[in-house]
């Protein structure tokens, strides 16, 4: 998320988000790409960003992602396109969209070779009108949703600094299996307990967003597990939870050696592991419903928050089958059981 700076490409991003959502993708804005440099001293550098990122899981849990570069200027289309091609390659995006107010023919020619789609603002508008949108009205709605999430994240920065940093930056740049461990860890260790906790809406939006990211990490893990072995899914979920069978075995060996050296008998697996495997294994039994969990969370986050209340509408719920609702609740029960987030944060969903 871009913090407190003039965001002149915003309208294009919002339109692109509408398009991605129409295509059935779970959408996120301004994903920062980071790397570590070891020259002179260890430093983290932002390489670039993806203006709108869309990801989805198909019915058999196959993962597919889109990324777009949205530029409002009328010149330098080719240079910007070359940079975007690099970003698409670096981040492993399956399909890129280059959106700019004006795109020259040479840029279109290059993008067609790289299987990227190019849209000018007018073309994008025409496309959305074709889908039946009142574009200006929808852009206003998306604008409100965009600022609401930004505001929610910003408001939690002082309280949950590490968590906010993680979901804004590290989540998109780390290996996926680490995200599962890190989110649970950060939710367990960095929640400041107050005697009389305030459950303001910003906090709820923030934790709804974290649940959404956690569901993406879990399903990605499950997607890899189904590849590894569908007949022994529980074993492969465990393997993927540690970055693969070889990596797990290596970690266990090191752990045993440390245990021997310190004369301790500590368990390698965290206390939540068995329940996590059980939950993921249930998801794998009904892949078409579980694939919709991130969409479920996003729908509720974007459509249920008003100025001072949360109201989950039937219209939103009807877009999902009952098993998706149940799986999302399973995930929230899991998070509230093994972290220090209170159930009251998710009460609106748990009570469905």
């Amino acid at each position, binding site marked *: 998320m871009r913090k407190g700076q003039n965001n002149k490409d915003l309208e294009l991003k919002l339109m692109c988000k509408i398009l991605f959502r129409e295509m059935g993708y779970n959408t996120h804005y301004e994903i920062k790409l980071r790397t570590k440099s070891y020259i002179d001293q260890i430093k983290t550098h932002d390489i670039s960003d993806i203006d709108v990122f869309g990801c989805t899981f*198909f*019915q*058999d849990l196959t993962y597919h992602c889109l990324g777009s570069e949205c530029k409002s200027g009328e010149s330098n289309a080719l240079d910007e396109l070359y940079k975007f091609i690099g970003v698409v390659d670096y981040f492993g995006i399956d399909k890129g969209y280059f959106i700019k107010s004006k795109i020259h023919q040479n840029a279109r020619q290059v993008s067609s070779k790289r299987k990227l789609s190019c849209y000018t603002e007018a073309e994008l508008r025409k496309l959305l009108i074709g889908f039946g949108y009142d574009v200006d009205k929808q852009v206003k709605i998306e604008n409100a949703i965009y600022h609401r999430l930004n505001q929610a994240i910003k408001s939690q920065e002082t309280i949950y600094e590490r968590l906010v940093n993680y979901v804004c930056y590290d989540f998109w740049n780390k290996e996926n299996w680490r995200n599962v461990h890190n989110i649970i860890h950060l939710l367990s260790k960095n929640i400041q307990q107050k005697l009389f906790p305030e459950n303001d809406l910003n906090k709820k939006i923030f934790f709804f967003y974290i649940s959404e990211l956690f569901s993406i990490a879990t399903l990605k893990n499950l997607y890899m597990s189904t590849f590894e072995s*569908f*007949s*022994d*899914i529980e*074993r492969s979920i465990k393997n993927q939870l540690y970055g693969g069978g070889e990596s797990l075995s290596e970690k266990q060996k090191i752990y045993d050696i440390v245990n021997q050296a310190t004369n301790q008998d500590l368990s390698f697996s965290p206390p939540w592991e*068995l329940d996590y495997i*059980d*939950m993921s294994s*249930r998801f*794998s*039994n*009904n*892949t*078409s*419903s579980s694939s919709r969990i991130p969409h479920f969370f996003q729908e509720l986050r974007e459509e249920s928050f008003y100025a001072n209340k949360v109201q989950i509408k039937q219209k939103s719920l009807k877009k999902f089958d*009952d*098993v998706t609702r*149940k*799986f999302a*609740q*399973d995930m929230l*029960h899991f998070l509230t059981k093994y972290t220090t987030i209170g159930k009251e944060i998710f009460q609106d969903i748990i009570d469905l």
Partner: protein
Amino acid sequence: MKQEKESIGIKIHDMHHGLIQRTGAIIETEFSLLKELGAAIQIATTIKDHEIISDLNPFYAAAGELKIQKNLAKEALQHLEALGFVRLRWNTGHREIIRIDITVPGLPKIYKDFGDFFVSENKSKMASKLVYLMEKLSLFPHKERDIRSQLHVPSQIYDCIFDIGKSASLLDSYTSPIDSESILYSPLYWDDNPAAIFDLLKKHKSIDLANALNEIKQYQGIPGDKVENNVLLDAIALNCFPTLSISSTTGLKKFVFTPRLGVGRVEKALLHKARVLLSCVRYGENFARISKIFSPEKLINALSGRGFLKAHSESLKQYESARNHGLVKLIPIGIDRYEVHFIDNDENKRVVSMALEMIAFGETSKYDNSHEVAKKILLPDNLKHPIQTRTLVLENEKVVRSTSTIKKVNDILRGIDA
């Protein structure tokens, strides 16, 4: 008198089959928790493959098939909710359940958590003594005076436990024709006179025999060569315990199991087949020359889940007994290697789950046919095996055939093969 939590859970499940048939002052007071938990385990194992039950009528119908009345089913569901195995949604007024979200875990956790729950929540001395008694009698029939001395309860409480146990078909006794001793046994586990065991009890104390049996429970299908316990050696010599033989590359080997034979023709046959399957796997685990089996549980899961075991030169002899019992087919691959293919039917699936229970808990839960009937009632239209779901998804993805493919198909149909 320390019992394993898992084992208590299994005993509660087994006792459910007797308790559910009975009612009365003592059963509804002293044994009410036992009855409710038994019903809860029975329901949990029936619904565990589902995600949501939103129409409660089929659920109560299935419970009815399991002889569980509607009110008892509701109480059982509340116990399941307390353990976090289901989430219940009630109507306004909290009178009727309108939806059940199911999160029932695997069998080991079900039995362990229920065992734990019973130990912490039970306030009835009679109920805990009955569970202990059933644990003893599931191993082998005991002399009544031994049991009385081990239970440490006044005779009026013992009489009460015995009466309830007998009325619920959990306990019974007969007078031994050899020494006129009163023998206590459980009709849940025994229906034939275990004469050989009493021959053994002439030489050894019942407590020693119980300890020896626990040794086998830890590793059902223990190879005869590895038995060092004197009681077990005598037991094998007197033919007290089911001992199965498998012959393969390293010669004839024997595998020893606990003596429970099961009740009724069906249960006996299933238990025997489960032991045959486990013996074949234990051979590969203990005596294989090439690529020993490291995890029998995973191997059996792969056999039943994936449907086959990869070709191996020792498979033909090692799994011959399983083939003779209609559990597997042996398919030749190459010159002397055989793939082991599981014969997938309801009976063999039950055999596999019994073999897995033997590995996990050292014993099997009571075979109950009404369980399968109840499961079928609950089967929703959209419940599919994971592999079926994936196949369906793939089938739904339309493949546009090119003209040349269509032409080729037409040619084949017309008989042109050039």
